């Protein structure tokens, strides 16, 4: 019996592949499994072909699968286009309806075993839909309890009434029945039933923002980040906050900066092209010391690139994007669950250190739906220093302090009026061209970030071994899975997942790589941005290696394991 399996449902637009996938995933959750689901769609804006890639397992899953066990084709209309994204081999099976014509060439070329599966016939027999037949077959092959499937169907289409439910259930049963005759052994070991958390990284970022105290968000729509704002929009009201749709990205970040100046924890949300437009204002927020959370859900760049696919190529821009020297905090969540924690912490750090803080997510974390244990890890609250014992002419907004964080009263507080300033300024915030104030400001803004104790938010070390892999963001999952497999082959590997990318947690990295024989930085971009960043800061030995590979293809654990072994 297997501990995890991967199934792809695919078909033309309207055939219901995505519905089959989601229902399957939810059923697996109820049956005590963990899971991941990625949606694929063709070039057409809507109505084109679609596929749901679902992996489920007995233990939490860290990464996209290397290969798929089953592909169920609802029809063959353009489904072949997905072949590069659904790796299969001779151990894989393809359920194909002979009535739907010849399977796509690219699918046949994988060597997967073709199984005749009369979807249309079965569906018409029970007056149901083919996608529910497929769902039933998949659940049967995986060994998922039919009660769990039924419950999921009731949850998802309950509103359509008992007749619709009955039809779906009949189709599911027919599919399951027909699957009995398939020669396959991909049954999962029993799951561990219990409460599960179901959501995407984009939703988890929204949740983390609310948990952290964000009460103002402004954004301009952009794939794959829009869902964060869409998730937040109705919920902001429920916690007394506000979501604004801006006329462009520059307006969005400036609205957030204005709201934050008003004393309200604020956030803006975007993807690559939008981030490029925001960098001027990021410099302003850094210079004027305005708290702000900037979420960047990375997609394939440069330029418009591939909006619906994942890449980690915005790191350079997050680290240094804006003219002049402008230090900022850059955090990257390492998993979907971690999106909530990282974003919550980002809000705290922004508020406590009065600075923009990046949350670097990506399309893969953001849009993958997952079944995980509830992300209960929370960050200790930290808040903005608003009080000052000085007032009137004695009040200095940028007063030097031990931790370089100065009092930041919000408008409404009497006697402590100040002017936020992007010009070089003195301790009062008055513009000045004097070298001494300018240099003091640069040092203050650097030191408040570098001297802060980030505690265990800096990252996570798993495993032990003389080979150390350093990774961030969505690469950490596949790296961990690769390490797990290598360990099964007795290759000892330590994985350093970096959550804090700037300022670089040099000491923690040094400790983690001490005594390493080999250090490899793994990241999903073309030029090794993290590698260059760490090397340029001497946070790694010169012999450290880089494994950098751009999107759009997802990092597969097998690919990483092969490189390292």
């Amino acid at each position: 019996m297997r501990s995890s399996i991967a199934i792809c449902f695919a078909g033309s637009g309207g055939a219901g592949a995505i519905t089959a996938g989601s229902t399957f995933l939810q059923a697996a959750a109820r049956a005590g499994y963990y899971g991941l689901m990625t949606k694929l769609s063709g070039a057409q804006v809507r109505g084109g072909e679609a596929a749901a890639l679902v992996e489920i397992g007995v233990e939490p899953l860290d990464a996209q699968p290397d290969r798929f066990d089953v592909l169920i084709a609802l029809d063959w209309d353009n489904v072949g286009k997905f072949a590069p994204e659904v790796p299969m081999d001779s151990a894989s099976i393809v359920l194909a309806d002979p009535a739907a014509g010849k399977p796509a060439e690219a699918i046949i070329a994988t060597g997967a075993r073709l199984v005749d599966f009369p979807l249309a016939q079965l569906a018409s027999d029970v007056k149901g839909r083919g996608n529910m037949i497929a769902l039933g077959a998949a659940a049967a092959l995986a060994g998922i309890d039919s009660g769990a499937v039924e419950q999921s169907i009731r949850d998802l289409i309950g509103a359509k009434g008992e007749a619709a439910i009955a039809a779906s259930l009949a189709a599911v049963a027919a599919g399951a029945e027909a699957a009995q005759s398939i020669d396959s052994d991909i049954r999962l070991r029993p799951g561990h039933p219990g409460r599960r958390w179901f959501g995407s990284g984009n939703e988890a970022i929204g949740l983390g923002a609310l948990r952290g105290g964000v009460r103002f968000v402004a954004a301009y729509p952009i794939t794959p980040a829009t869902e964060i704002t869409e998730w937040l929009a109705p919920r902001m009201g429920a916690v007394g906050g506000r979501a604004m749709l801006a006329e462009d990205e520059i307006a969005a970040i400036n609205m957030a900066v204005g709201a934050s100046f008003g004393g309200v924890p604020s956030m803006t949300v975007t993807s690559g092209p939008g981030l490029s437009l925001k960098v001027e204002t990021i410099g302003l927020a850094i210079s004027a010391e305005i708290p702000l959370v900037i979420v960047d859900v990375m997609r394939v760049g440069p330029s418009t690139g591939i909006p619906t696919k994942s890449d980690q190529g915005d790191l350079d821009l997050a680290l240094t994007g804006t003219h002049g020297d402008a230090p900022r905090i850059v955090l990257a969540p390492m998993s979907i669950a971690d999106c909530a924690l990282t974003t919550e912490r980002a809000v705290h750090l922004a508020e406590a250190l009065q600075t923009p803080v990046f949350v670097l997510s990506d399309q893969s974390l953001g849009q993958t739906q997952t079944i995980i244990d509830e992300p209960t890890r929370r960050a200790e609250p930290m808040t903005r220093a608003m009080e000052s014992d000085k007032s009137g002419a004695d009040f200095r907004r940028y007063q030097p302090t031990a931790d370089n964080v100065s009092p930041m009263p919000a408008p409404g507080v009497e006697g402590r009026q100040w002017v936020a300033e992007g010009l070089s300024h003195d301790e009062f915030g008055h513009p000045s061209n004097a070298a001494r104030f300018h240099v003091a400001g640069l040092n203050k803004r650097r030191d408040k970030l570098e001297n802060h104790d980030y505690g265990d938010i800096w990252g996570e070390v798993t495993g032990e071994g003389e080979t150390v892999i350093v990774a961030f963001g969505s690469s950490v999952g596949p790296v961990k899975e690769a390490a797990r497999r290598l360990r099964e082959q007795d290759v000892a590997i330590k994985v350093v997942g970096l959550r804090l990318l700037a300022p670089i947690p040099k000491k923690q990295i040094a400790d983690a790589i001490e005594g390493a024989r080999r250090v490899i930085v793994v990241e999903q971009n073309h030029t090794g941005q993290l590698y260059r960043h760490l090397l340029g800061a001497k946070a790694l030995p010169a012999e450290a290696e880089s494994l950098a590979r751009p999107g759009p293809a997802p990092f597969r654990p097998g690919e990483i394991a092969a490189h390292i072994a």
Partner: protein
Amino acid sequence: MELHLHEEAACHRADLTLKDFKSGVEPIWCPGCGDFGVLQALQRALAANGRPPHEVALVSGIGCSSRLPAYTSAYGFHGVHGRALPVATGLKLARPELEVVVVGGDGDGYSIGGNHFMHACRRNVNLTYIVMDNRVYGMTKGQPSPTTEADWDSDIAPGGVGVSPFSPVAIALAAGANFVARGFALDVKPLADILVAAMKHPGFSFVEVLSPCITFRPEEMDWKKAIKRNAIQTTSDRKAAMAAVMGADELMSGIIFEGDRPAYGQAHVAPAGMAAIEGEFIVDPAA
């Protein structure tokens, strides 16, 4: 510090004077710059408006005119070039009980910031926007702006840009602004009156102020004579206002239009809270 997130009936303080709105910071403006007049009119208007300095926030972009916030005793935000309106929009929505006034120049507001101007007119958040229009980029030493005459000679556009200026008040009316006025920097008292009306008006109020740049456009000092002070008839009919301003002399001062579009709304606070939101994610086979 507790923040009041909902608009409150602000109490009016009758004891405030212009002096209460002065800061000790010395303006960098050239002696004789029209912006001194605008500063004075604004300080006067703020006093008359009756909100104390700490309940007022002045937001600006970059330019000579945008330096203004530091010269008052209110809270201030001197942001980046062209982005004052979005900053003010965020601030006002987050803190509706504050009096938020936006100031800047014609370059800041009509050139690089033109889109935010148009959308602020449309969105109708309760802000007062004062543009100190000297028909030139003063701070960068004399280039033509969107309100500069087509034939005005400069280094960057010898012989003139060859593009006719646009009318900011016409754009504002077309984009939906609900209070549109024009003032003259050196008519301090009448300008202050316009500004008081603008602040009192709910929703977005736009005040175009003709403010001479004595250094790069010394001929604008002739505006003192040329301004027509009683030629404008205030109307609440947008079409009539538009007909009155299109192609008309841009040197008339007064309140052009005052409409009644409702200001951008309050956020709804639905009684839900975090627990309900957290619960949405849970799949519980036991439930």
